[in-house]
């Protein structure tokens, strides 16, 4: 393997890792807020990819119009998701019930997407096109060739992750959300509207996943099998350590890189390699690479 392939594999892996990180961050936010693993995360990504695909391909919206409209739709999806899958179950005595209902939600999302947009995979134009050929723009330096899409994915990922960190570390609203996530009862006594903070968490989660879907849509096709990507995000969360956002991001990027490098040697067993890494990490360091022991709410 020469240096050039190495560099392009690294960038590709990093970009995929960013997608997983966006999903993983959403997973952690939900674990913190409601203490439940969301098994519909990948299907939220798929749904976001379909929505943005419909907006760009069918309605031919330019990017400046796409962003606000898409954000509004994501917010609606987030709120609907919360009030159907979490709200009725918030006092459930049997914790597995909440997990199973997110599995049901995953099926529903997949089917709604199939009913609206059909079962055939759709193609989506890349964000940066080559003006002469109309195909994906390629970045070339020193003999390394890369799709611009991967670079953009990394940039968008970094921006979103920074925004979430600013929200939770610097802004008052973010602190309210954290307080509500840590102790709902005490937060309510302090006058924090926990229903609003939970809804905000859901909107952020859906937006993160959907933007991930928008970014990878040109690389893969838009189809209802995109949901399977969530397993990698799970792996990232577990490798990073439960409940730890920084760890989840680094874990997800690690998963992306492992996946990317493993395509060279054993492309058939890509999945196996990723999950063998997961199992190995779990056995050596069950609390994850960056995790402390946290209470297991789920």
């Amino acid at each position, binding site marked *: 393997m020469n240096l050039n392939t190495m560099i392009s594999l690294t960038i590709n892996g990093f970009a995929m890792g960013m997608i997983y990180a966006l999903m993983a961050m959403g997973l952690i936010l939900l674990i913190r807020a409601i203490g439940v693993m969301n098994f519909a995360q990948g299907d939220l990504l798929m749904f976001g990819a379909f929505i943005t695909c419909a907006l760009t391909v069918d309605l031919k919206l330019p990017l400046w119009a796409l962003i606000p409209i898409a954000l509004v739709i994501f917010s609606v999806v987030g709120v609907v998701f919360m009030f159907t899958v979490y709200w009725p179950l918030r006092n*459930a*005595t049997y914790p597995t*019930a909440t997990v199973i209902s997110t599995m049901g939600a995953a099926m529903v999302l*997949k089917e709604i997407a199939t009913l609206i947009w059909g079962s055939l995979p759709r193609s989506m134009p890349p964000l940066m096109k080559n003006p002469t050929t109309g195909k994906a723009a390629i970045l070339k330096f020193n003999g390394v060739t890369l799709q611009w899409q991967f670079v953009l994915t990394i940039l968008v990922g970094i921006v979103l992750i920074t925004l979430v960190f600013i929200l939770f570390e610097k802004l008052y609203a973010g602190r309210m959300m954290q307080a509500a996530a840590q102790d709902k009862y005490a937060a309510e006594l302090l006058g924090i509207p926990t229903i609003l903070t939970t809804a905000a968490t859901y909107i952020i989660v859906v937006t993160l996943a959907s933007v991930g879907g928008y970014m990878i849509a040109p690389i893969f096709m838009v189809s209802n099998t995109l949901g399977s990507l969530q397993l990698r995000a799970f*792996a990232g969360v*577990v490798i990073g350590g439960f409940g730890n956002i920084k760890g989840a991001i680094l874990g997800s990027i690690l998963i992306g890189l492992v996946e990317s490098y493993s395509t060279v040697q054993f492309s058939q067993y890509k999945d*196996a390699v990723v999950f063998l890494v997961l*199992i190995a990490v779990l056995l050596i360091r069950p609390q994850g690479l960056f995790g402390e022991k946290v209470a*297991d709410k789920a």
Partner: protein
Amino acid sequence: MKKRKIQLKTSTCLVFLAAAIFVAVVPAVNEGYSMMVLNLGLIYAIATYGLSVMLGLGGQLSFAAVAFMGVGAYLTANLCSGRHGFWVGTSLTLLITLLVSAALAYFVGLILFRLSGTYFTFATIGLVQVAWSFYLSYKPLFGGPDGISNIASLRIFGWTPANYNEWFFVLAGIVLVVALLVERIRRSQLGRSLSAIRDNEIAAQTLGIHVYKTKVIAFTIAGVLAALAGALYAMHSQFVSSDMFTFERATSYIIMAMLGGVNNTAGIFVGSVLVTMLPEWLRGMQKYLQLIYGIGVILLMIFMPMGLAGLTSNIGKSIKRKLFPKAPQADKRAKEDAKA
């Protein structure tokens, strides 16, 4: 000393009656394709019983059932299809499958139960994914994407089920044995230890239960039952391919268990058969089937997290209360306890 009496509760009698009617009526009115689907439901029920030992009794959410189903199915496929140039009798194959899968499940359980709670669940997802990609890609043992065909059908004492209806009786018998076994486990020391672990692991430990060992044993039981289901699936369909052993399949087993009532032996069976037969009954609504199914799962979790079994027991209690308002069950129990 008191003489041991066999006590039969009304509900138990009703369950057996329902089962007898089911076995008598169903093969008489169905045949061919729909019978095959029903048989698959029975096979899934065996694996789901394993899940109920893990999830219902032990409270451990495990996705590993499909991985072990794969072990059973592919062992059977390799031994009974002659693809390596030798044939092994089907009864012997079943025995080998059970032993190998028990050893394997015990070993895997020893490793995975160093983790607890959600970490354990994730390790089982990893296991399913690793196993699946090998089933999909490794040709010499698993046939790769083409799968393995030409698997010999089951042969018991020189008799081979000729069609799906005859298979039905064989499978129904096996399911009955497995169900009784699980019911027995529920009432045994192992079952009570598992329930204690589910309810409070630390308390269970202080009561002297060896938590790790108990969990590993439960995992082994679940693995063996799943492998048995896999072996029967291979012999029944005479074809095995990797798409039977994906993560999506694993979630459907969990839904089967939850639909019927994860802690109810009869409920598990009803849940498995219902989930398997639903696509057949709602053939006209094929397009919306998965949607209905998904919404159904969410509604089920909201309104009856203990599944159909929870619902029927609630209905049963309220009927009893209406029929015998003066002698509620609880009071009678309390009086008996006071006497003893």
